[in-house]
Structure formats: structure tokens, C-alpha cells
């Protein structure tokens, strides 16, 4: 099951994942294939990997998707020089934009160990929209392509 689907004109790639950390390897290969096809710069690829993994792992760890089979779907396409992503899961309602930003000024020892994932996603992907409908979480993300020598993007 869960083969990447090709959609004609818009050149969208999609993958359906089980709610299981073992799927990360397949997810990785899928992102790599997309970035390769679109010839994306190294840095953009890395940002996509980090951000998508955070969101998918969150859904797997905390979403309690039932059944776990085919619970998560990720679609990626290029539009107007941006990578457009749609991530959908059947887990508990969770809006990552509602998570307060961590206190980055606290000393390392005082820092809570968790809560950084969503912060990283928001740093790496400037444009995120959340919707809850049809008993699913929908995230729409747009990541501008960053040139490898561009440090300002962070």
C-alpha cells in the first residue's frame, strides 16, 4: 500500500504513511525524491526534512491516530517559486500555531527538554495555515526556496 501517487498537471507528489515511527525512512526517501526532481538547493532540502519530520513525528507520537494504517498524508508541489505542502492526519485536533514559543533565553539547565519541535518548524517555514475539518488536521505550508549561500533566510 501507500505508493507515492503522481498527479498530472500540477506535478504533485504525495505519500500516505502509517502512524508508526518506522515510516520515517520512507518519508525521508519521498522528500529526497521530490527535492531531487525539483532540483532544490541543499539548504532548502534540509529545512524541509527537519520541518516535515517534526510535524509527522508529532502526529505519530501525540495524535493517537486510530487506525494507524494510512493515517497521515503528505503532498508536495512547486508553485510560484515556493514548495507548497499539504499535511493531513486523522489524529486528535492539534494546531501547532497554538503552541506558545519556548523561552530561548532560559539557561540550558532550566530549559524544559521538550517543546522545541514546533518552534523549529515555525522558524524554518514562514507560512503555515491550520484547519480542522472532516475529523482531520490539515496543515498548509509554503516554503520559499532558499539559496545555499543565503543566510538571511533564518
Amino acid at each position, binding site marked *: 500500500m501507500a505508493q507515492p501517487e503522481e498527479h498530472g498537471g500540477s506535478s504533485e507528489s504525495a505519500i500516505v504513511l502509517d502512524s508508526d*515511527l*518506522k515510516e*520515517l*525512512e520512507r518519508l525521508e526517501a519521498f522528500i529526497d525524491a521530490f527535492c531531487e526532481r525539483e532540483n532544490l538547493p541543499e539548504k532548502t532540502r*534540509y529545512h524541509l*526534512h*527537519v520541518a516535515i*519530520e*517534526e510535524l509527522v*513525528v508529532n502526529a505519530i*507520537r501525540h495524535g493517537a491516530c486510530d487506525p494507524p494504517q494510512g493515517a497521515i498524508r503528505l503532498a508536495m508541489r512547486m508553485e510560484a517559486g515556493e514548495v507548497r505542502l499539504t499535511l493531513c492526519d486523522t489524529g486528535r485536533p492539534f494546531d501547532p500555531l497554538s503552541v506558545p514559543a*519556548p523561552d*530561548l*533565553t532560559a*539557561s*540550558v*539547565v532550566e*530549559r524544559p*527538554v*521538550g517543546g*522545541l*519541535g514546533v*518552534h*523549529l518548524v515555525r*522558524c*524554518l517555514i514562514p507560512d503555515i495555515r491550520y484547519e480542522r475539518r472532516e475529523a482531520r488536521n490539515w496543515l498548509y505550508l509554503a516554503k520559499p526556496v532558499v539559496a545555499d549561500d543565503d543566510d538571511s533566510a*533564518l
Partner: protein
Amino acid sequence: MAMEITRADVDGCPELRVSGRLDSYWSRHLGEAIDELLREGIHRARLNLADTSYISSAGIRVLLQAYKQFVAVGGALVVVEPSARVREVLDLAGLGTLLGTAAVAPAKEAARGDAVVWRLEEDGCAFEAYDCERGARLAWRVEGSPELLPAAAFEERHAATFKLSRDVMALGIGAFGDSWAACRERFGEFLAVGGCAACQPTDETGCADDMVSTGTFTPSLMTLHSLSCQGKFARLVRFESAGGGGPVGLTTIVRGCLAAAGPAGEAAPAAGVVLVAESAGLLGAALKRPPVGNGNAALFRHPEVRQWLSFSPVRSHTRAVAVVVGVAARAPVPEPPAKLLRPLDADGKLVGHFHAAAFGYRPLRKGYIEMEATVRRLFEGGGLQGVLHLLADHRPGCGAGESEFTRGACWVGPLESISSPEQTS
């Protein structure tokens, strides 16, 4: 791509080099490798991330956790040569300070090493003692009637209330609760020390339970019988298995504690001991049923013993940290405590009674440490696995042996007076 961890010694400092991905899936292996360093007693280490191609928040979580563990034991963990990708993400997470700032100094002797007042190496164990409160003694007390235990003959009138005072350590049979009805079905082994207590309930849950006193809140236990010591400890005795020998048996540790406890350097005849140590395996037993309202039982007789006590001839809680509370003495011991003390060594010259609470592994700081702070950190960190009565079985050939430890800290006080108040009826 997977992840690989290689270990090397760089300028006398252990260095873990991580190549590949520190993601949700692989980073826990790094956590395990770091735990292993701490278990070996290493308190300073480097983490080389030059070949780490990817780090996610899960990887950062492992780094943060490890960093805190090293700081907690007075050591240091430094991230060196992070790849550009790792550096970018660590910067985003506001964790620049984790990056290698200074070279890691080779491990130094504990800062209070000059305060060591006594040393001994015996039976494959190296001991070092520090003064806590010179000349301090512990007052001990037996409450209740331990002789009712073998027949499971305890009744409501035998129960007493025990408050978790911070200067009292105790062990016995008890349960959390303030009424007979609440405790009746749950009485089991307990220990209390430094304002913390742990119980092994005998109800169906079988899940060990603990409580910690806070500023205004002093929890209490209902006990069927207890042995308690009150006062200050004279010495802190640190021990570690020496000369490449295996773990150290409880008897060896207790002998070292008695030898260190005397006020003028002579051995004490009897002492109260609180031990916090890395367990190589505990040998003990716990009640399966509350020893109440019976009177005709024979808990310790075969085959009935199987219905009453859970006992495994194989050591449990290997790789745990144990808090052990008890009393030890050189035989013969005057009544009444004698009936609570059992032989610890093969020839019965050393007697004692110890209960242990096992916690998930946490490294122990080296050198001089405070008893209450150390114990409270363990209790407050959660991870209580169980409470048991420690056994010594030295029968030649078929004996199961005794509990064993690799290193730890014992707070010891010679016993001052013996008192057995009126029956609490």
C-alpha cells in the same frame, strides 16, 4: 541513512563521534551511549557532531537531557565541531551554549577530596569517609510487635501513625493512608528517609508508591511495626568496587560502614545506614498479602511461604539506583532489636535489617554529597520500581547470595540508645 556512534579518547577525555542522523528514530541510541558513559563513572565527555548530517528536535532533546545529566553530577558535556546543519538548528533552538566553548579539562579529583578522613580497601572494595557531624549518634526505636508477622496476626490495635520527619529514617511494614480501612488491604514493606517514603502495597495493583514531604505538607504512614533511627549522621562513606573485581556485596559494604562509624576511628558495634548506590542486582522478598487478621498463618514455612511472599532466587533491579535503609550490628545484640536483626554474613557475626527502594538508573555525583538532597532528587525524579526486604542467603552450595552494588554513598551513624516503648495498643 542510519547513525553510527564511535568512541575514542581524545587528550584523555572520552569523545563520542556521531555520524548520520540524529532524528526521532536514531537519537535514542545516542541517549543510551551517553547513559553508558555515566554508568562507567565518566563525568566529563565530548560529543563530536562533525559528521552529523541531520538533527531534529528529538536529537536536541537527547543533547539537552545529556547535558543536564552531566551538570547534575558536577561534570560537563561539550558539543564540539558541529556540522553547519547541526549548528544552524542548535542556533534556532537557542542552544549555542551547548557548542564547544572551552576545551574539556581532564577529570580532576573531587573538589572535597582533601576532606577525606578515612580510607580502607578490603574485599575488593575501596572506601573513603568524610565527616558529616563529628561524634553524632542516632537514637533508635522499635515500634509495634514484629513477632506478630510470621502468623500474620496484626490487628487494628497494633497500627501506629508514622510521620515523615526529615531527620528520621525507618523501615517496616506499612501503607500510605490515615485509617485502618484505607490501609488494611495494602500493608507491605516500606522505607522512609529524609522526608520521603516508599511503600510496596499488597493490593492487586502491586505498584510501588512513594510520597515526599514539602514545605507545609508532611505525609504520614500507618505502620504495623517499624524500626527507626533519629538524629544526624556522623559520616559519609563512599565506596566503589576496586581492583577490577566484580560488584560488592551488601555485607562488605556494611562492614566498611561499621568500621568507619566509630567516633575515634574504632569500629562501631551498631549503626544506622542509609545507602544510595548503583545496584548490580538486589536479592530480596516482598509480601504478597497484607499480614493482618489471620493468626494461624506460617508466612515463612514451606510451602505456605509461596502464598505470602514473592521471592526470586535471581537478583532483580540490576542497573538501578537503590535507596537502602537499615540497621546493622555485630552479634550478639541485646533485646528487643535482636528479633528484627537477621544474619547478614555466613557465620552470623554480622546482623541487620534492610529495606531497599529501586529507582531507574541515575548517575551519582562523586565525592561529598548531602543525604537529603540526594535522596529527594531520586524520589522527585519519579521512576520508583519497587520496595523490598533485602535477604542474605549464604547457604553453601545452594544459597542465592545477597544484594550487590558497584558504587555508592552510605550515610552512617553509630546507634546511641535502644528503646522499645509500650505496645501501641
